[in-house]
């Protein structure tokens, strides 16, 4: 059994302060405590990338973090990606390029791509493929995802 620790974390701009079981994964905290089910769990060992969220702006795997480790941090998830004025350019580009099929891996890829473009606003296709190789997608064969990220970069998403 595990104890509880008080955690104060901001998620998508909203502040939460509550006792959290020490061993609770960040992915489970987001999904089952906060109801943010857009973050998906595909492997729980850090390979598939579906659970990727931002921790103070950096892409991290929420299945490899404990919720208590986010105390004092700013977390953002796919639910926070679109603005009040509509979809994020990456989301638009994914729709335009048919870059998703089942959509299960998509939230993690969107979050990773947003962080990637923030640091590399004009990437080559190879650089995009390298970044994307940290994510598993079994539907698309990846090419449409690379197209979408490249298009979003051109549209100034970074």
């Amino acid at each position, binding site marked *: *059994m595990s104890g509880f620790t008080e955690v104060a974390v901001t998620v998508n701009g909203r502040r939460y302060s509550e006792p959290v079981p020490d061993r609770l994964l960040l992915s489970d905290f987001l999904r089952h405590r906060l109801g943010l089910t857009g973050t998906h769990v595909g492997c729980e060992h850090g390979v598939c990338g579906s659970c990727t969220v931002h921790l103070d702006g950096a892409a991290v795997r929420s299945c490899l973090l404990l919720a208590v480790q986010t105390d004092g941090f700013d977390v953002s998830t796919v639910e926070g990606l679109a603005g009040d004025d509509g979809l994020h350019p990456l989301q638009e580009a994914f729709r*335009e390029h048919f870059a998703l099929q089942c959509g299960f891996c998509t939230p993690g890829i969107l979050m990773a791509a947003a962080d990637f473009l923030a640091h590399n606003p004009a990437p080559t296709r190879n650089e995009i493929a390298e970044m994307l*190789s940290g994510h598993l997608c079994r539907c698309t064969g990846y090419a449409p995802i690379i197209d979408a990220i490249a298009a979003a970069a051109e549209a100034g998403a970074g």
Partner: protein
Amino acid sequence: MSGAPAPGTWIGATPHRVEDEALLVGRGRFIDDLSPVPGAMHLGLVRSPFAHARIRGIDAAAAVESPGVLAVLTGADLAAVGRPLGAVIRGATEHRVVAVDVVRYAGEPVAVVVARDRYLAEDAAELVDVDYEPLEAIVDPLAAAEAGHVVSDRSFRYGDPEAEMAGAHTVVRGRFPFGRWTATPVECFGVIADWDHATDSLTVWANFQGPFTLHTVAAGALGLPAARLRLLTPPDSGGSFGTKAGVFGYVVLAGLASKVCGVPVRWIEDRLEHLAAAGSATHRVTDVEAGFAADGELLALRYDVIEDVGAYLRAPEPATLYRMHGSLTGAYAVRHVAARNRVVHTNRCPTGLNRGFGGPQLYLALERIMARGAAALGLDPAEVARRNLIPPEAFPYRTPSGGLYDSGDYAACLDDALEAAGYEKQRRHQADRRAGATTADHRRLGIGLACVVEPSISNMGYISLAETPTERARGWPKSGNAEGATLAMNPLGGVTVRLSTVPQGQGHRTVAAQVAADALGLSPADVEVQSEMDTHVNAWTVSSGNYSSRFAGIGAAAVAEAAERLAGKLRRIAGDVLECAAADVELRDGQARVVGQPDRGVSLRRLAGAAHWNPESLPEGLEPGLAVTAFVSAPNLDPPNDADEVATSAAHGFVVDVAAVEVDTSSGAVRILDYVTVHDAGTLLHPRLVDGQILGSFAHGLGPALLEQTVHDPDGNLLTGSFMDYLCATSTEIPELRILHRCTPSPFTLLGAKGLGEGNTMSAPAAVANAVCDALGIDDLDLPLTAPRIWEALSASDPGDGP
């Protein structure tokens, strides 16, 4: 909406997917996102670490005392309230969802913990103490056959293969093993089960994909009349590729656990469980013999197949072996073929649906032996293919084993592919490189072809080929493949569609809206499509679901048929209002108008209002209501006949791949330089979604060609139980795919469409194997063609100083 076409021509357009926005903003609704019943307890499964062992005892005392635990259930507890899973073949090893007395594969469930949350369930699962007596395990299919673990042994003969083989100018032989791999989706299995003791019925939510034959199997194992098993699927499912057909076993497991404990339960599979126990493609070893005339004509084929289905024959197996039976001769006009099919049990996880489903295994053997035949005859493989392709005038073409190919122009597809690939130039380049090669040059060029017929819309009767005609005669004949869809127009003229095709990302809702819009003269935006299955609500048959690439051919056809019937009804009502014949009414832009008189019309909204609010106004004899359910059945899918001939599928696309590879003999690494694929899938309903399916199925073909395999050690321990060990192809391993299309509409499907979601999974392993073997001049290379495997093969072929 992109690509907005003229009214009535949405089929073939490329609108954005209606599925996308929710998925992009994190509002998808997958199984683990649902809480359809309050208070569901979580299941944690205890699984066998041994591939074969006797269970001497299970001590669950500590687990039961663990915090938050309601119960620990053993196989005996569930066997007391349930039944074994029904199998396709009598005499198969009895299969229960939780093992009783003996475990037969590593990962088989032996106990079920029911606890307040998943963490507590997993804590308690570790405390369950199972006393095993390990037994000898058999992992290799050939060893299983030798040991007599054969559950089915059937021989087939069409034409006179012995005589043709005896008279052949050249006979080539080969053994082509195709090991296990799994198309493994990124979302694992999930089930939420709620047994109601008041009515003795079960409601289950599960990311099951069909076929709904398995609903019947599940109901049988639950001991329920089928009407008391209500099975629902969530709005979204995170991929399947066949795999999630296997969810039905867990529907039974969770249902029985809910029944015993009297509470609703939920189980979400983790990745380690999935890779160990969800299922995989069969491991098939094919010995094949091909006889050729001197000019390259293929005269006869003989197969000897051993198919490892794992520890239990899980329905619908041995379907992997028979799905391609009508296509034993592939794309070729050869009339003489024989096959012996043995299905064997091993101590490995039961196999099941997996993208390509029998096609990759068949075509690896057939296309490799075609390449070997060409080499033995000193002919170019493209010429040998062309010499043997079924000619366009032969369609519809009956294959020797009973397949009925609907349409195609195979030679034209081959020409397209060779031209796009620059095949002659590639061959010249290869010859130049070989002529100028020095010992310091480690890079070898190879070119590989694959010509594959891609069947879709499976005949539900083909599986009965596993029985002899006499055995079949004792049961009911099975045939066909039917699908239903429901369309309804609400009082304001809006249209809803309900599908039973259970998509996992293929965009069925988008395409159904296009199809309905065309029939009703609307825009797809006016049509709301639901794709959740509810077996108490939807129009479905045993063949419903998402497999055998059946949506375009039969799923969309059911929508078209229902929409046409609704349109016919609207035309009758409009004809009454407009005082013209129903046949003179056209539906366009939300209006019903008299043809040729654009100003004489009435809105669909008004017609719908009349039908709902004022049924007294309807034409004499017209049934009130605007909901239409239509079923369509694919034609020509008779049960197998006494000669064991069967049309295994209703539609047949065609795929030609040309792969150019470079193999580095110093490392064994394979690099794909160029890859061209030409498809004929008949009428394309949404070309962008079509290309998406092709790209995905190509990735699933390259995986087992180069990287992916499910590996067990000789004791049956799984060595690929995580994504660190089971290497899914990633974005850096998949080369650009150049896609070309040709179109010969199917005469056998309502919209002329053929399935296309599996073709490159069938063709790519063969094309890549042919290319690598061509590069190295080596005949025997087992998949996947990893660098170490190639390096070892080169070392073995050159024992002197290594490659």
